[in-house]
């Protein structure tokens, strides 16, 4: 149970994929034009991440090392296909607004990164919660970005008018540059908050990491993933 909580905390706060690991930047920047898109993308990714982590963790002793990345991609792609069909059937509006970015979840570097760095080395339960934690962290990140961009760029939040009538939306915020502004701003804010935690002695990093202290392999795994993700995701 402890591992589960630790994994959730790790994914949401300590190693938040959006603000700390800076992974999955393509969906982060491209689809967060509204709060709804942000939360939709985040939750979709979370489902796939949790399922693929679970599956890859189960298969971790069967998958040969030499072909692990293709094997991961096959697993992830299967789940993405399933989820896309489900979205198409039950939430077609979300499917339409996310469009091409759903199939692109296959090459999302968070998913491949977690498969490589965590799920392929850790037991099933921990991997599942790692996936959920990372997915929640991603959802939180995307939702925050989406809320702020929608608020400033359109004047609404989740489609509801928030700003007064006279407010003139700063439409650059729903375009690509706005995504960078908001991402940078939120990253700076969360760094500031974590710095003040450290000052108070509530060091978040003191909670035992499940990274098995193997930071080198983790980093190299992430790098490889980022390279692959960067070209496609």
């Amino acid at each position, binding site marked *: 149970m402890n591992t589960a909580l630790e994994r959730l905390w790790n994914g949401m706060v300590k190693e938040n994929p959006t603000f700390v690991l800076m992974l999955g930047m393509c969906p982060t920047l491209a689809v967060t034009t509204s709060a709804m898109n942000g939360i939709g993308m985040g939750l979709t990714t979370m489902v796939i991440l949790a399922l693929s982590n679970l599956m890859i963790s189960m298969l971790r002793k069967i998958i040969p090392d030499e072909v692990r990345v293709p094997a991961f991609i096959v697993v992830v792609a299967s789940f993405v296909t399933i989820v896309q069909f489900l979205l198409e059937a039950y939430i077609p509006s979300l499917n339409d607004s996310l469009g091409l970015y759903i199939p692109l979840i296959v090459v999302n570097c968070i998913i491949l990164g977690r498969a490589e760095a965590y799920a392929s080395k850790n037991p099933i339960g921990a991997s599942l919660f790692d996936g959920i934690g990372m997915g929640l962290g991603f959802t939180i990140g995307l939702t925050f970005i989406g809320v702020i961009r929608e608020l400033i760029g359109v004047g609404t939040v989740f489609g509801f008018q928030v700003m007064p009538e006279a407010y*003139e939306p*700063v*439409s*650059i915020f729903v375009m690509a*540059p706005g995504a960078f502004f908001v991402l940078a701003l939120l990253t700076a804010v969360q760094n500031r908050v974590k710095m003040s935690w450290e000052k108070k002695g509530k060091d978040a990093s003191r909670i035992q990491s499940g990274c098995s202290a193997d930071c080198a392999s983790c980093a190299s795994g992430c790098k490889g993933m980022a390279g692959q993700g960067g070209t496609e995701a």
Partner: protein
Amino acid sequence: MNDLRNVSSSPHVRAAESSADLMRWVLIALLPAALFGIWHFGPKALLLIAVTVLVCVASEYLYEKGMHKPVTIADGSAAVTGLLLALNLPVGAPWWMAVLGGIFAIVVVKQLFGGLGQNFMNPALAARCFLLISFAGRLTDFTYDAVSGATPLAAMRAGESVDLTSMFLGTTAGTIGETSAAAILLGAVILLAKKVITLRIPGIYLLTFVIFMALFGGHGLDLSYLAAQLFGGGLMLGAWFMATDYVTSPITPAGQVVYGVCLGLLTGVFRCFGASAEGVSYAIILSNLLVPLIERITIPAAFGVAKAKRGKKA
């Protein structure tokens, strides 16, 4: 102790001018264009200029105070940014837009990248483009004196004829500071005479642009068309006052030539083939981004180092 020779790091040769002196001359050189804008567009233009200058200086002061950095408002660079931003706005822009632009220019483009000397793009132009993208309708509405006026460039694009004399003098529609080529050239002469800028960047910029327009403008060597393109839009203001910004232009002479050619080509491409009649702002900020690369390929050979050797290494 006084006999000890201090070995300090470069620069070893110092000039008497300071940033503050240079900025003062830029401000003086911008005065004709600003005064003309106020005369032409009325007190609303003065209000906009005052707002942007105040906001720029205030946000520089507040940011530097807040970040515990030395306060550099006395060097006048924030005031220059503010004035340039105002001159790049149409007179119909509401005051809060000027405030937003001023804050964006100073805080996001200048201070977040390290303050004066570190900004990667001209702050005033970046702010103008920020506003232009955000409030496209408002920023391209050049109504003044209750007359909805198309800018000369837009009129030319629509196939109407334009009056060259009024374009040169500046009694046309446009942003506050760009309409009068005469007032801007007067300022440019001041800058050139005080050696604040050299002719290299603006000269090459305008020359490349004229050649490009003669080749692709669709009017051949029609002198009145070329002159109208030169005097129209933000070209004059951009070429003399914003392309020559020390921080965002190359320091190597060869680099300045390359930079000028880039500016001319991009402006020409935007004006000829772009969706809008204007293109100077985007041409300048895009070229600003190319500056580090331009400088890298035009580093002069160090004394005593053969050119061929450098080429091999590179």
